[in-house]
């Protein structure tokens, strides 16, 4: 019996530590700032364990019976903790409250375990042996768990299923304890039935965890998904691997936090720096606030109007700590006015004038999005442009979608604007293209805002040179009644992937 008893200690110690690690990791993934998250979670957890140990003195009788119940409870609470936290993060408010509540409950229960166990077995061994053995195996279990967690559990099982698995181990310990301490438990069979029911529940959870974790999507996304939501308009997914946060809309990569500065600096500064006194700026699309972040580097800019279809998108990028760290809380700036509207009707009906316009829509992958790349759209947009104003248009890749890129450039031209195409290398996208357009000639700026990570004045002329493999192609324009671009774009990418 001795060795079995100490294996029990080892297992429950491992379970307790795993729940703690999961809470800490989840909080770091979802909220960022891992030092803060791990510190506060370990602190709360240890503190709750202390309370648990203190409370153990009030349990006077039925020690083994209560120990089994504690294991059962731990199995359920710990096992489902990760799933519950993911769901709370996506669908409910008060994620942090729930997280700390769970950590404290788990800590309390774990704190009760060891004192109770020591009292259960104290009659069988010398006190000094009990303390020595129990604590030895306790720390051994902790070592095992802390090695297992990063090496096997996170990469192969993920957070939700790891928690479920250890919940099952907790309940298995409960079941096994009813045999181990059979002589101290009346009606052990009733407890065993409960154990079996909980085991079935957790096993079902383990099997179905795919649906909860979006592990089904793990095939699409290389990294851990830290946020996923179906809004009325799109499917938003955020992934994180180490310090790389990626945003996907309808499974299309929008940015990687590692190199988005290249994209957004190149999107904004060549155009905006070329305008003598830009006061009013319009951003269409770009609900991530990253282009706005760059625009706010110009103190002359008085107002930025951001039109993005999806209120959940702009809310997410106004409130999520990881994302506001990325966009430097740009969407909360008093200069910024967020309008949640469909861009084309908004542009068509609004009459405001702007000195600079950023048109940063998703690629024309379908006929609905294709409307935003038509002569009619650019004509409507041009009506908002002040005489000295410029617009810049995200125009797909001149490298991978060369036909599409030059079709967009031609479409803007046919809308009556002068075009100045340029391109930039963004590692996570590859070679990417933009078009500056306006009524006047464009002169490359002679100065740029300070503190840019990528753009400098010397580097500007190169952006406007197109090597032979990206050189202009004669293309007809994209029109509402003949959306050539959608077919071109589709074909361009098919050619790449074959």
């Amino acid at each position, binding site marked *: 019996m001795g060795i079995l008893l100490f294996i029990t200690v080892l297992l429950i110690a491992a379970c307790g530590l795993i729940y703690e690690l999961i809470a800490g990791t989840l909080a770091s993934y979802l909220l960022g700032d891992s030092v803060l998250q791990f510190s506060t979670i370990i602190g709360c957890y240890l503190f709750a364990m202390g309370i648990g140990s203190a409370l153990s003195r009030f349990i006077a009788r039925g020690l083994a019976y209560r120990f089994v119940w504690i294991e059962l409870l731990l199995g359920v609470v710990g096992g489902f903790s990760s799933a519950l936290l993911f*769901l709370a993060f*996506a*669908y409910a408010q008060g994620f942090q409250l729930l997280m700390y509540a769970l950590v404290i409950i788990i800590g309390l229960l774990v704190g009760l375990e060891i004192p109770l166990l020591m009292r259960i077995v104290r009659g069988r061994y010398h006190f000094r042996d009990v303390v020595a053995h129990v604590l030895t195996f306790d720390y051994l279990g902790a070592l095992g768990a802390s090695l297992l967690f990063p090496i096997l559990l996170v990469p192969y099982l993920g957070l939700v299923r790891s928690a479920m698995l250890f919940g099952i181990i907790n309940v298995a310990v409960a079941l096994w304890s009813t045999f181990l301490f059979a002589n101290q438990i009346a009606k052990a069979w009733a407890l065993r039935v409960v154990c079996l029911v909980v085991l079935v529940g957790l096993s079902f959870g383990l099997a*179905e965890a795919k*649906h*909860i974790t*979006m592990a*089904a*999507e793990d095939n699409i996304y290389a990294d851990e998904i830290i946020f*996923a939501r*179906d809004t*009325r*308009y799109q499917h938003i997914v955020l992934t994180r691997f180490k310090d790389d946060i990626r945003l996907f809309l309808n499974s299309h990569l929008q940015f990687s936090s590692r190199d988005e500065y290249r994209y957004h600096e190149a999107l904004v500064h060549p155009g905006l720096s070329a305008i003598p006194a830009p006061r009013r700026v319009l951003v269409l699309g770009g609900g991530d606030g990253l282009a706005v972040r760059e625009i706010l580097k110009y103190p002359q800019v008085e107002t930025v109007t951001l039109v993005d*279809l999806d209120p959940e998108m702009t809310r997410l990028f106004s409130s999520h700590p990881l994302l506001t760290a990325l966009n430097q809380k740009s969407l909360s700036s008093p200069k910024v006015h967020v309008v949640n509207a*469909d*861009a*084309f*009707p908004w542009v*068509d009906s609004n009459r405001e004038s702007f000195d600079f316009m950023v048109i940063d829509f998703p690629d024309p992958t*379908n*006929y*609905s*999005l*294709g*409307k*935003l790349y*038509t*002569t*009619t759209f650019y004509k409507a947009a041009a009506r908002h442009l002040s005489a000295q104003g410029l617009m810049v248009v995200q125009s797909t890749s001149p490298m991978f979608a060369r036909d599409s890129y030059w079709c967009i450039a031609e479409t803007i031209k046919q809308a009556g604007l002068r075009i100045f195409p340029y391109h930039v290398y963004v590692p996570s996208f590859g070679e990417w293209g933009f078009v500056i357009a306006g009524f006047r000639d464009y002169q490359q700026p002679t100065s740029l805002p300070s503190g840019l990570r990528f753009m400098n004045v010397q580097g500007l002329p190169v952006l406007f040179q197109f090597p032979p493999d990206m050189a202009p192609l004669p293309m007809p324009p994209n*029109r*509402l*009644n*003949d*959306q050539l671009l*959608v077919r071109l774009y589709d074909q361009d990418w098919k050619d790449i992937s074959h």
Partner: protein
Amino acid sequence: MTVSRREFMRSGCAALVGLSIKGDRPILGSFVNESFQQGHSLRDRASFPAPKQIVRIPVVIIGGGIAGLSAAWRFEGKGFSDFLLLEMNDQVGGNSRWGENEITSYPWAAHYVPVPGPKAVLVRELFEDLGVLKNGEWEERYLCFAPQERLFLYGRWQEGIEPAIGLKEKDRDQFRRLEEQIHRFRASGNFTVPMETGLSERNADLDRISFSAWLRGQGMDSRILNWYMNYCCRDDYGSTTDETSAWAGIQYFASREPEEKGPLTWPEGNGWIVRRLLERVGGFCRTGQMVHRISQEKRAIRVFAGETEYQAEFAIFAAPTFVAPYLIEGLSALQDFEYSPWLTANLTLERLPAAYGGDPTWDSVFLESPTLGYVDATHQTLRTHIDRTVWTFYWALADGPASGNRQRLLNNDWNYWKEAILRDLERVHPDIRKCVSRIDIMRMGHAMARPKVGAVFSLERRQLKKTNGRVLFANSDLSGFSIFEEAQYRGVTAAETVLKDLAGDSRKAPHR
């Protein structure tokens, strides 16, 4: 199958409380815009009240469809304002009526105008006035957005309505030969829009046989080609190729340019044109005014509507011509005016049905269906995100005798037609019942003139096209078929004739 977390949670919760989340919502709706009773009161020679007031007005336009509104548009454009337009229904527009709900406006019948060719001078003039044609360029937002049309066949969608997949060499050969024939007819200049400008006796023999007989005569027996020809005739004329004059069948293809990037269309269909016309001539229109008697006298024409008698110098009869013998004293019954019964329905969709490859289009047609498919009212919107919409479902009851189909229209209740429509859609959209919240149905016993064999060159039509004393006929059915350009042409030319005659009269005897 992948289940989203939300669905997982929802189904979990539903299972917990023992509720089914699949409970279908009921589909609401009714018949709308019914005018059988008014029409039948004329047919049955019901007695109408004696006039209580007399209004003297130089010109009365009877009927507020495109023909009547176009006459009014011409009057207004020429600065002539001594006229009134009387419309039987509460809403003008005729076959270009439209409706509106919180999602979109939508058509009740005619929903597009093919891009007018150079010979359609009057339609081009109208579209210049409405801002559709600017400096020789068509406003892009009024041209049908891509992708325009699709056909469901062999379990999948293809782009375009003319069948292009699954064709055998024989089918291809016959399509090619037909195209060559059409090209020759087009080049002859005898098949034009409006039809009057090109109409030639040389082609009168084509009006003496049916389109299907002509196709047979040309050795065109391909099943798929004949399906497509039959679809086109049902779509434009409400009749099958067996019932359609070969001249009209050829006109459908030969009067249009083959390479047009159109048509012109709007969410409410041609209702958009009516709206714009109303902005110009709405002040002259009197709705809910059913004319029940017209009597011609030497010095005036008396038009009785409701409890008012209008005494005018001229009346432009823009209502369907078949009603004329019931109204105009002394006009004998018409033999050559036959009409097709139609049904249109507007379906409100709370969500879009599952797609089967490809983007949704403006017009969707199903191969071998007795109906004509549906048109999506939100297709022609600038919005990029659409999650609710309205579909206009078209059904020309073309098979079998028209009178029997009219009885079928009248005798069956809303539920019968609702089921018939859903069953047709279900073949292509199995989940349609879960998407639709409302189906409103409009029944039209005499929706459009049917260009049956002999109709186009009929003597009766030729006589009515001439001025008949003080009554000028202006409905598109004078052309033999109901299309927007014909109605507009007839309305405008009638107005011009009246203006000329009034000028002549006033030279002889100034009436003021």
